[in-house]
């Protein structure tokens, strides 16, 4: 029982990441009809926003006054962090510690800008081209973005720490009456899950309750008719692209402490996120979220030793197997609508 609960929790954070990326993919696909293979790269860039900010905060210079002498008797100069100089000792230390959450503020404008540039500069010209061309050009873009990051940040993963206060783990077991340490769960993963829930809720509320969202939803259902109403749907779709980029980017920012960001994390997540989108149903936002969590949790159960003893290696392929079965039995996915990408 406790093991099952633990796996359920473990599945949540990965599921959250899948859900957030798949949500953006679906938004872009549903509104613009574009299959964006570069969406994983956006997630990766988000994670590197966190890396960048923490690097900026750790910029330092040597102190002008020596703090003592080293073992050779030469004067020793300490590193002084710029932020501590500018914002004071304690505020600076706090900012450095909280660099990942602070990166959210930094990442939102960056990601929206990247989204706008991508849409206006590239994707826009591919609306009328075949899907194969869209896939190919965004695939090329994904490689470029990934290689650029690799060039600046190197090939090795860069550990990025969560704030001190969240580094511990929470003992769920005690709360639920199990043995201590039976179910321990890192605070940050809980936060990640809560954060994802907020973002997902935000996106849904935005689409549900604002006029803008209403038009976008109508556009997802029937683009031509909405266009005929004289509404400038293209402009709204550009904004949606920016929002989708921001969602994926934020998913990446917050994911940085869970898995040290590396340049190919986007590709790794992208393949799975596509599977998630297809399982959920192309063009269905609730489907994307549902399938994201479902597959995240499923993957985490498959990695239990009890399961692996029966079916070795099942954790490596479970998502694909499920996706293939679903595509064959329910071609539209769990919650796909009729008529979306049928032919």
């Amino acid at each position, binding site marked *: 029982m406790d093991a099952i609960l633990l796996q359920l929790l473990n599945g949540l954070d990965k599921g959250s990441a899948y859900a957030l990326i798949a949500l953006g993919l679906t938004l872009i696909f549903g509104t613009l009809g574009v299959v964006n293979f570069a969406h994983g790269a956006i997630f990766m860039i988000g994670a590197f926003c966190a890396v960048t900010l923490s690097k900026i905060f750790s910029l330092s210079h040597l102190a002008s006054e020596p703090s003592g002498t080293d073992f050779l008797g030469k004067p020793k100069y300490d590193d002084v962090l710029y932020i501590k100089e500018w914002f004071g000792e304690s505020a600076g230390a706090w900012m450095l510690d909280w660099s990942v959450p602070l990166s959210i503020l930094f990442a939102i404008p960056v990601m929206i800008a990247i989204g706008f540039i991508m849409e206006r500069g590239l994707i826009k010209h591919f609306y009328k081209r075949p899907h*194969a061309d869209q*896939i190919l*050009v965004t695939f090329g873009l994904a*490689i470029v973005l990934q290689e650029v990051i690799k060039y600046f940040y190197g090939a090795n993963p860069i550990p990025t720490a969560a704030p001190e206060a969240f580094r511990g783990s929470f003992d769920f077991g005690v709360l639920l009456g199990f043995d201590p340490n039976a179910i321990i769960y890192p605070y940050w993963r809980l936060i990640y899950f809560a954060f994802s829930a907020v973002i997902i809720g935000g996106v849904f509320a935005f689409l549900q309750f604002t006029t803008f969202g209403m038009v976008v939803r109508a556009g997802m259902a029937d683009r031509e008719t909405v266009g005929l109403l004289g509404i400038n749907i293209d402009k709204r779709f550009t904004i949606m692209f920016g929002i989708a980029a921001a969602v994926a980017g934020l998913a990446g920012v917050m994911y940085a402490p869970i898995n040290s960001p590396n340049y190919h994390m986007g590709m790794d997540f992208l*393949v799975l996120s596509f599977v998630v989108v297809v399982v959920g149903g192309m063009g269905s936002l609730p489907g994307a979220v549902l399938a994201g969590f479902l597959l995240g949790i499923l993957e985490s159960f498959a990695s239990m030793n009890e399961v692996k003893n029966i079916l070795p290696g099942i954790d490596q392929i479970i998502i*694909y197997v499920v996706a293939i079965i679903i*595509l064959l039995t329910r071609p539209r996915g769990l919650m796909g609508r009729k008529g979306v*990408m049928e032919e």
Partner: protein
Amino acid sequence: MLGLNKKDLGVLLLVALLAMAAPILLNPFPADSGMAQFNAGYPDLMQRFVIFGIFAIGYNILFGLTGYLSFGHAAFLGVGSYSAVWMMKLLSMNVIPAILLSVIVAGLFSVVIGYVSLRRSGIYFSILTLAFAQMSFNLAYSVLTPITNGETGLQISLSDPRILDGANAPSYPNLFGAQMNSAATIDVGSWSFTFSVGYYLCALLMLVAFYISIRIFRSPFGLMLRAVKSNQQRMNYTGLNTKPYTLAAFVISGMYAGLAGGLLAAMDPLAGAERMQWTASGEVVLMTILGGAGTLLGPVLGAGFIKYFENIFSKINDNVLHGWFSFMPDGIEDFIITIIHPFVGKGWHLTLGLLFMLVVIFLPGGLVEGGQRIGRLFRRKKADTNTPDGTKTPAE
């Protein structure tokens, strides 16, 4: 001749001639000159040209003709390699059973994956093939370690049974005793040309593969595949069942990939899971579209182009760059090198990605279309100025 029309026969003969003379043609620079680094006439690289040529020729039968964009063909390449290595471990170091098995196994594999994936079309198909390939990669990397030797990759060893080989059989892949890595080097003046057994085996098989692909292109079957790409609705209402056509194309391209994988293993007897990664699938897509999807010659050109520049670009480092631009004033030299640096050496993938985008954006028809455009431009100019110079032909 050979059941081909004049034009196709010409293309085939041209490719045959180029392939046979490649060890000479690709070594235009004397061995001790500074330009020798641009030579491509050494066996290892030439083998890659033709092997990936085979891969792309096969992929083109699927993608170029039917328009089905598979992102999983590297899986068949990998399966081919594993099968070939196993054959060399168990049966014989002779490459013939190894290559045969790799084609057969890849074919069977592609029947299964194709049957499932082809139940959907468009992006669903692309994503399904991607999922299958990634699944195969994961399996090869972890669970199937007894078969694939996981991360290390599958290798041959002296303790392998090799039941058909006698005590004196060569311990390296060979064709009835002629080892794949054996080569004759002929020096002509300061030029040095290497003729290797492995390369000529690959080149011959590539020519066979190319010939079969021409036959398919010109056959009623090929016409039907192009019809699939053009209008499936019309096909269905013309009494044609599209599924077996697409599946046949998928399996044929899978077998080509298996052949390529088998040859890779025959040239260098090891097989690793990274050959199945989806970036490898992306590479063959790029070769095909860069050369020109749906054209005969395109995939061969694309494969050669990519493998050549991969090789050259990877070799260029800052020292080489400094050598090139040393004639410039220091400041400008450093500036230019700083700009070029990210794209060469380890930055080859960045160049590859950019190339990918540029080709899709500006030249969807690939190099072949580009060549035709230039050709038309020349012809028009000629017609405009009405010069009597009729012997000059546009560069290919």
